[in-house]
Structures are given as C-alpha cells and as structure tokens.
C-alpha cells in the first residue's frame, strides 16, 4: 500500500473501511480479542476492584525520538491505571484520521500500539475509526480507554500521603517534553535525546511488592511540579523537595535554560512520583533501581506536616522557594 493515503471513504462504514480493518488494523493488533467483530468486547475479569480511565492524544509531531502517538496512547492510559495500583488488562482504541494521512504512517502507528500493548501486557479489545476532512485534524488523534484490576490489599491513592513519607522518582525528568520539542524542528538543537515514554505497570508491581507505597502520580503535563502540588493538596500534607536530588540530564537542563523553561514543569511520559512509608523507602528504591525503568531512581524529598498544598524546594544554594501550580501550558501539543 506504499504511497496510498487515508480517504474519506475509509471512514464511511463501507467496503473501504472494511478493507482498512481487515488489511491493516486487525493484522497489526492481531491475536487480540479485537478481531471477534462483535459490537462490544466481552471480557473476563479477575477478582479485585475495577479501575477505569480514558485519555486522548494529539501530539505533534506524530513520530518523535523514543516514541510516537501510538506508543504514547497506550502508555498514557496504562500508566493512569498503574498510578492507582491497578494491573492494566484491556484497552479500547479510538482513531480519528485526517484525510490524506499516508497509510504507511498509520501502519507505523498501529505497529507501535501493538508493541506497546504487548510490553504493557494489555489487550486492545475494542476500537473505532473515523476520518475527517483534510485540515480538520493533524494526521491522527487517538483516544484510549483502559480497564484494570486492583488486587485485594493494594491501597494506593493520591489522598494517602502521610507526613514523613519519602518522595521517590524513577529517573530523569523533562525528557519527553524536550524530545518532542526538539523533533518539531523549530530549533537547531543537535542532541540525542529520547522521550521517556514507557508503560509503568511492571515497575509499579515491583514497587508494591517491596514496601508500602502510599501514593503514585505520573508527572505528565505540568511536569513534576504539577504532580507535587496535586499530591500535596489531595493528601493535605506539605512536601519538601531537595532540588539538586531531582535527576535531570545536562542536555535537558541546557535546552531549558536556552528556552527559559523550568524542567520541573516539563512533561514526562514514563515517570512516576511515589510517596512511600519512610521505613520502606530503601527497599522500594532498591526495587526501582533493579527495574529497567527505574535505574536512575532517587529519593527527592519527604512529606511534612506543614500547610496542606505547600511544596517547598531547597535549591543548590541552600535557600528555599515555594513551588507554584503551573499556569496554562509551557509547551502545547506534547501528548
């Protein structure tokens, strides 16, 4: 199908659409429950509490270093499930395609959805495809919804941070936002930097096995700053962060400096912020470091009994400042 593009007919519900499903979408996501061609997926669920979430993806460019919109759409939803301690099981995939999108691009995106789903051990069980006129969308928009199950005994909640809890992060911050920005080609930044986009459910499972994890949050849009502020407000605790302890690549710091961005506010797609009972912090950190997605994990601060919603950062110079909730977006269309 080299050279072919998406046409309005691909979304028309007729034969062209059937062709697209039969020739491209089902094979790409093959071996999964999707190809049953029923109107709805019929699912078996293991015992536990159901977790259910949805997210939409409009990233520009569609393909960037370290990922693409397909991988992002799987990881984003899987990670939202993982942040409440759920084991992700099933996803839906809603595609909004722009007329004129090369079918080769669609094939790459689908292959990447399939790969990420495999890595995250989830199945794509239902989907929908619509086509809009050229100029009415930006290549592909994707919506995914996800279902997971929280095993008995797991209680992870953004409201459960307790004074004394240690704050941990699983690696370098800001990679995703800066990688996407770099790949838009607006700047001549000649650096090798990949998005951190990755499914975190496996890492979370290892962490839950290692100690009492009270709360998790993935610092996506709004970056680590927003995640810290949300955790602090929702749990009615104060948080103290040691800024030099926050893992930050020199490349990301340098680019942020040039552009006047604060890396604390730059998006991540494969990071989690965890609040862990202080006695278990060392064991959880060790479990994180043993996992591929947590090799650069670090303890970055602690929860305190100060004013709820107050996040203070102690800088390299030893003076402290308060973190503010980000205003609007630093960078548009990054996820």
């Amino acid at each position, binding site marked *: 199908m080299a050279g072919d593009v998406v046409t309005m007919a691909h979304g028309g519900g007729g034969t062209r659409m059937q062709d697209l499903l039969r020739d491209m979408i089902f094979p790409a996501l093959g071996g999964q429950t999707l190809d049953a061609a029923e109107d709805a997926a019929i699912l078996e669920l293991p015992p536990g509490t159901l977790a259910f979430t949805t997210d939409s993806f409009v990233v520009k460019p569609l393909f960037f270093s370290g990922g693409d919109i397909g991988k992002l759409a799987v990881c984003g939803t899987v990670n939202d499930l993982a942040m409440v301690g759920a084991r992700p099981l099933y996803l839906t995939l809603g595609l909004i395609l722009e007329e004129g999108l090369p079918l080769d691009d669609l094939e790459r995106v689908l292959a990447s959805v399939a790969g990420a789903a495999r890595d995250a051990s989830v199945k794509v069980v239902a989907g929908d495809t619509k086509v809009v006129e050229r100029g009415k969308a930006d290549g592909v928009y994707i919506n995914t919804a996800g279902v997971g199950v929280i095993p008995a005994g797991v209680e992870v909640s953004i409201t459960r941070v307790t004074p004394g809890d240690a704050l941990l992060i699983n690696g370098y911050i800001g990679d995703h936002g800066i990688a996407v920005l770099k790949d838009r080609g607006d700047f001549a930044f000649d650096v090798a930097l990949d998005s951190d986009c990755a499914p975190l459910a496996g890492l979370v499972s290892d962490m839950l096995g290692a100690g009492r994890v009270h709360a998790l949050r993935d610092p996506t849009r709004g970056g680590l700053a927003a995640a810290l502020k949300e955790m602090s407000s929702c749990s009615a605790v104060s948080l103290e962060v040691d800024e030099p302890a926050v893992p930050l690549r020199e490349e990301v*710091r340098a680019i942020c400096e040039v552009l006047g961005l604060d890396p604390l506010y730059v998006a991540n797609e494969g990071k989690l912020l965890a609040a862990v009972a202080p006695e278990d912090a060392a064991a959880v950190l060790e479990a994180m470091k043993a996992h591929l997605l947590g090799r650069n994990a670090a303890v970055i601060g602690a929860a305190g009994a100060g004013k709820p919603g107050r996040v203070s950062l102690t800088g390299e110079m030893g*003076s402290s400042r308060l973190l503010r909730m980000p*205003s*609007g977006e630093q960078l548009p269309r990054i996820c």
Partner: protein
Amino acid sequence: MRYIDEFRVPAAARELLREIDALDAHGTFMEVCGTHTMAISRAGLRPLLAPGIDLISGPGCPVCVTADADIDRAIAVARKPGVILTTFGDMMKVPGTEDSLASASASGARVRVVYSPLESLAIAAEEPGSQVVFLGVGFETTAPAVAGTMLEARRQGIDNLRVLSFHKLVPPALRALVGLDDFDVDGFILPGHVSVIIGSDAYAFLPVEFSMPCVVTGFEVTDILQAILRLLKMGASEASLEVEYARAVRPEGNPRALEVMSQVFESCDAQWRGLFTIPGSGLAIREEFAAMDAGTWEVELPEPTRSKGCRCGEILCGRIKPMDCPFFGGRCTPDNPVGPCMVSSEGTCASYYLYSESDGPDERGEGADIGR
C-alpha cells in the same frame, strides 16, 4: 554544555558570599536584564545577601516594556483579513486595552507562536496567499535576527513577510533612568546577552557622565555574585565600567550583527510601558524596507483607558518592588495577569511570584525559611 557547569559550583558561590559579607558594605544595585532577575530569583539569591545589599529589577524584560498601544496595534493587525501574525509565545497573554493576542486568536484571528523570526519566513513561503506579520518585540538581542530574516526574505523573493517593529534599545533607556530625579541606585548589573551584540563600550557614558558603577555580567550565580562584589568594591568615587562576562562580551560587540541591524532599522523615539517616551530608544524600519513595515497599516485601535492601577511602571524603574503593588499575587497572578510583568518568563513580577518563599499577599513573611 559542560561550560555552564563550571559556573554553577555552589562552593564557589559560597566563597563569593563570604567575600561579600566580609566587605561589610551596603548598596542598592539594579539588574537591568530580565534574565538576570529570573536567575537571581531561581537561585534564591536575594535572602542570601547581607542585609545592606539590595537587588532591584530594571526595565530589561522586552515584553514588560511594550506599550499598551503597541499591543493593541498588534491585535488589530492580527484581526485583519488575510493576515497571519507570528509572535514569541510570551506575548500571547499580555493584556492590551481590551484583549490579548490569545483572546484574539480564540475569537478567530490567525496568530501563531514561533520560536525564531526565521520560522515566520517559512510560514510566509508556505502561505503565499496571506500576509505574514512578525511581531518584533525584543532588545538588541532579537533585532539582528529579525533584520536578518527581512534581508533573507528579500534575497529569496518572498514578498509577503511583514514586521511590526516594537524593538527597544537598552542604552537610551538607561540614560533616561539615571537622569530621573528620584533614581536611587548605586550601580548597574548590566545585561550579558545584549552586550554580546552591542559591546561593553556602549555603556561608557554611565560612569563618565553619571558616576555610575557598572559591571557587564553573565547569567550564572557566580557571575552575578562576582558583579555584586565588584560593584561594592568600586563605589561611586571610582565608578567605572567592568566586564565580568568577558568570556562572551567584547568592547566593540558583534560588528556583523550591528551592521545587519542598521541596514534594516534606524533608531526612533519609543514609548516604554509604564514609563514614558524615551528619545532614540526604539527601532523603526528604514524607508528602503517600507514595503515590509506593518507598523504603517491603518487599523482601528481601542480608546486608551486610564491606568488599571497596575504599578508596572514604578517596578520597571526600580521605585518599588513587586510585593509593594497591591495587586501582586492577589488580583494579578500568571493565570490572571493585570500587567505584562506578571506574564513574561522574564517578567519581574512573574519571577518574584514563581520563586518566592511566601505563600502570597496574605501571608507575606510567613515563609521566610532560608536554609543558610
């Protein structure tokens, strides 16, 4: 990239702080440039300095000093049929008399955020049916790139690129400031990036005519501390111009950039927001490039309203600090800015707000938890 780190070493900064303390001197110094204000705020430098040393922010944020009327003109130009206005992102939320570019864009004006003027040229090439107007806001750091883009447009025969030039020049503004009766500053921490272009000689008049100690300064914490140390040692009696940022700044500046700039622009009087009209402090497009000048277009502008009570002007002159403005942190926040100083990433109020140690206007002083 490694280059930066050498200038970040906290031990070196601490040593400089000790040296400053040992002088047991006092002084009020103005950091002219918004990038300095941001660096000082981010490092939490102000509370670390001895009590007698005060740093105040100057008019060095280009977004902040853009006059209401100029913002209104940009919005009116963006609303013209067939126009695409390109701008740096910082300008989007800046409030004009009635609207901002962001609200104009939401209601149908074609406004695109760019990171460099050259991007506007690419858009002009892609959209031959539209007039692409670049909103030129910035100091001597930005103006050469805009001039270069205009020359490039001419070279490539791209005839639908236009520019609104609200560029400003730093030395005439400093001359106007030091001439104010109530200007009470003991020395200038002069901008690094601007000086790379215009050269340190451009400030020679400050110590000579006004006995004003000056240090051209880089942007790392140790650079700024070095500058403070030098200013304290200098004192008004031996006022001179020193270059701390010698690794980047030459006395004569960057002749190529200056030449490109003067090929396209000539100096003109310009209104600085909250201040006044400063002679020779703006850049107008030369007659030869008049066809590219969107500043001469006829547009309908809203009636200027009386002051909104925002004290930007006094903050930009160093008369008051952001916390002294009744709106700071209350009615005026980055989400809901009353004035541009709260919008720009280099704005004085934004930097004080984002990096302050207190919780807001009601609890000022409560959060002074300094870790030294």
